């Protein structure tokens, strides 16, 4: 293979590597701003939900499917709000929550306040050292000492600094610690809520003191959607997430502060009214490449074409635009699969000497991506086939939530939007699922 060809293929391949982008990255394409996302950019909606709201506080939910650019879009939201003069703290809750065990409002509040405390302390432009010497963790230990809540070694005999560190680590890493904490807090939830609210208000006051009374504060609590448990306790964990957001919306609001929580996509399906408890709820869909009737959707395809063009010259890989569109349609607007497929196709081109690849080679690489999703059980196939036919993700019973979450997480099921949200099977799996479902139906008949 000529060096120039090899270099081109390698550069294109590298440009498709999986990494979150900053909004000002040369490869960033604003796919959620235009008609590809039904003209309803979730990031702008979230930002508007804050800037248009009088009173300086709001609480909103944000769902993002894995691989649809959620991290990038949260960064964009942060950037957008900062440009408008907001002070924004991005708290990645994966450092504070244990995703494998049920969450309770008490430990969630402690974790959220602790995360905000750490976020403010770490940023010299926000509060910096001013908050670092007496952040929330110390305050939480003092609260427990005051209310005589005994959990592990957090009581008076321990140094408060060590105890606060133990609290932070215990919440994150020790399921039994969390369980005991949840039990002990049951009679003190009101007091704890008040204490957390007071801490949040103190933070707002501190920021106002430093940046002016008109300063509006935004806290983005990210990664909460990753609470999923394991094969043994997933139903329990899902239920706890639902209870947290559907049962305690009042406790998740904080005075003088705009808050965004990232929540799992299945929450809206399991609790259809949950968004009504908040000031807004938005979901980051896949890029829509077909409409509900199955017809190719040109604005979505145009956006994806632009994304590919930013990364490399696809005309050196495919002999026609038809081939590119075929790949775009087959990967369902799910960017990671699109990039993975293109990477495989670049390798196939290299295998063949560096020239363009034909449709058969393209289909071979798509088949290899499809294989990653297989096998699919008959029971899964039946339900997925129903979704494919109706585009609705109705749950026959609540026990199916872990299954639904699994479909979303593994991208067997993709979510699109035209005004309302609708669901479809991953295009690469359409035939397989329909065949399996038919086979399952026959064997039952």
């Amino acid at each position, binding site marked *: 293979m000529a060096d120039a060809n090899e270099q081109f*293929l*390698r550069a294109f*391949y*590298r440009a498709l*590597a*999986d*990494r979150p982008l900053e909004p000002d990255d040369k490869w960033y394409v604003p796919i959620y701003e235009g008609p590809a996302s039904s003209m309803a950019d979730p990031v702008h909606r979230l930002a508007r939900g804050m800037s248009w709201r009088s009173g300086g506080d709001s609480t909103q939910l944000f769902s993002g499917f*894995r*691989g649809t650019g959620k991290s990038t879009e949260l960064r964009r939201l942060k950037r957008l709000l900062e440009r408008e003069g907001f002070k924004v703290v991005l708290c990645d809750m*994966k450092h504070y929550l244990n*995703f*494998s065990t049920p969450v309770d409002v008490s430990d969630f509040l402690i974790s959220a306040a602790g995360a905000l405390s750490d976020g403010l302390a770490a940023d010299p432009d926000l509060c910096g050292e001013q908050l670092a010497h007496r952040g929330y963790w110390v305050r939480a230990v003092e609260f427990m000492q005051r209310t005589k809540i005994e959990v592990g070694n957090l009581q008076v005999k321990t140094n408060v600094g060590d105890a606060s560190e133990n609290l932070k680590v215990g919440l994150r890493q020790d399921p039994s610690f969390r369980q005991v904490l949840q039990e002990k807090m049951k009679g003190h939830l009101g007091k704890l809520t008040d204490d957390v609210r007071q801490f949040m208000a103190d933070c707002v006051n501190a920021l106002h003191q430093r940046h002016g009374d008109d300063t509006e504060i935004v806290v983005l609590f990210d990664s909460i959607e*990753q609470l999923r448990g*394991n*094969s043994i306790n997933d139903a329990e964990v899902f239920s706890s997430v639902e209870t947290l957001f559907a049962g305690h919306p009042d406790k998740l609001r904080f005075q003088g502060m705009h808050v965004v929580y990232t929540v799992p996509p299945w929450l809206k399906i399991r609790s259809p009214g949950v968004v009504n408890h908040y000031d807004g709820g938005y979901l980051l869909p896949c890029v829509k490449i077909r409409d509900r009737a199955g017809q190719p959707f040109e604005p979505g395809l145009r956006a994806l074409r632009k994304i590919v063009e930013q990364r490399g010259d696809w005309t050196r890989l495919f002999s026609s635009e038809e081939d590119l569109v075929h790949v775009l349609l087959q990967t369902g607007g799910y960017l*990671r699969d699109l990039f*993975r497929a293109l*990477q*495989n196709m670049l*390798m196939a081109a*290299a*295998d063949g000497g560096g020239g363009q690849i034909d449709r*058969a080679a393209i*289909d*071979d690489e798509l*088949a*290899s991506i*499809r*294989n*990653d999703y297989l*096998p699919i059980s008959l029971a899964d196939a039946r339900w997925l086939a129903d979704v494919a036919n109706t585009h609705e993700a109705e749950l026959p019973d609540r026990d199916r939530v872990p299954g639904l979450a*699994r479909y979303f*997480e*593994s*991208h067997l099921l993709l979510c699109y939007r035209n005004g309302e949200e609708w669901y479809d099977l991953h295009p690469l799996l359409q035939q397989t699922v329909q*065949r399996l479902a*038919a*086979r399952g139906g*026959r064997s039952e008949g």
Partner: protein
Amino acid sequence: MTAAASGRPAPAQALARATARLARHVGWSSEFWLAYIFTVDLSSADHVRSELDQALQQRSRTLRRLRPAAPSALLPSVASHLGSSVEETIWLEAVREPGGLDSSEEWTNAWTNLALRLNERRQLVRETFNGGLILVAHPELKSRLRGAAPDLWSVRTFVFDLPAAALPPPVLPADGPLWIERASFVDGRLLARQLAHDSSPGTDTPQQQARGSARLATRLWSTGRAQEALEHATLAVRQYGALPLDPATRTDLGDALSMVSGLQRSTGNHAAAIAAAREAVEVLAPLQRDDRPSSSDGWARALVLLGLALSRAGRSADAQAPLQEAVTRLRSQVANDSGTHYQLMALSEALGALGHVMLQLRRWEQGLAYYREVIEGLSEYLPLNVPSADALAAHSAALSAALIRLARAPEARELVDDAYASYEFLANNDFADARGVQPPSALRRVAQELVSAGHPPHSADKWLSSEPQTQSP
């Protein structure tokens, strides 16, 4: 020592693909990457690892192989590195089948736990393993690893399902399409009388003489007298060729040429088989342009025969186009509700032949998909009888053999069980004809392969313990 020198079969294309892709990737990428390898056969994994090791060495990089001896060591073997900066490529290998021997449930739990923990700390995983991380596990853990670590799975660079290189080559369907060459007689004495009648010279018109030659050739072929059948089929071609080529004669001539092609192929004369099939396609083509539905069956059959002849001559790439064309034509007929039993069987055979060709071209997934379509089509549309059960069994055997090679034995086991279940049904419902109901030997062979691979079909005991029977024609 090379694979060939060690007496093992040459590595399958799946191995070649995995090794080539990994080698190229380490040359092209310098960031974190993650690969999953699923296999039942450690020799396949060894082959890939050794090739990858060489590719890395050429770039002055190294591969570190981790093989925890106990389930409890699986998580620490990786977790102990987290937070540091590992420039080597890490190969973590523990191939244990769930539900098998050797405390495998503990291994399954250990793998699940590892997946959960790595998923929770995926950012750290990405920051730690700069040289890449490869997880090598049993294929039955694929769904579990995917479900337990969806975030990690979503950033995978590769997933390879490696074949079991140590197993014998796949069993593919008998040479030739079953529906064309199947005998349609049951009584030997009646057949002898028919042959005598067809052979006797008469005062027929040239058209009738040509038809007589063709009929005799068909009957002779049915009795297994291929050489004599070829002589009479060739005579029929000459006789039809001497007639004015109206559409009816053209159709008959095309069919006779198709028969010559099938007979030449059955005697191993591939060049002549290709030439005759090609001529049949050419003779029948004008009728397609005139859109005569009655000639479609013959044309599709000629295309299938051309594809089969090319395939048997080792020209799989050339075989693809005519088979694809036949499949397209037959699919359209079946989809338009004009599909007869004959067309359904023809579509099955065309798909089976195309599946075979795709496997030969190492387009595994496409090959498997064509075979699956055949099996599902046969199960769904055709009444269960001996011919359809035989066709189902032949294709199930072929697909299963391929699946075993792709380390997907559980799927193969399910297919083999389904195929045996058809015979069970026939036997229990008194469907037996003069030949008796007996699964073809190809199915038996693949069932035995599954037993050897540690995935015995549920039906194996009953069918495999009986004496093998002669395979049906």
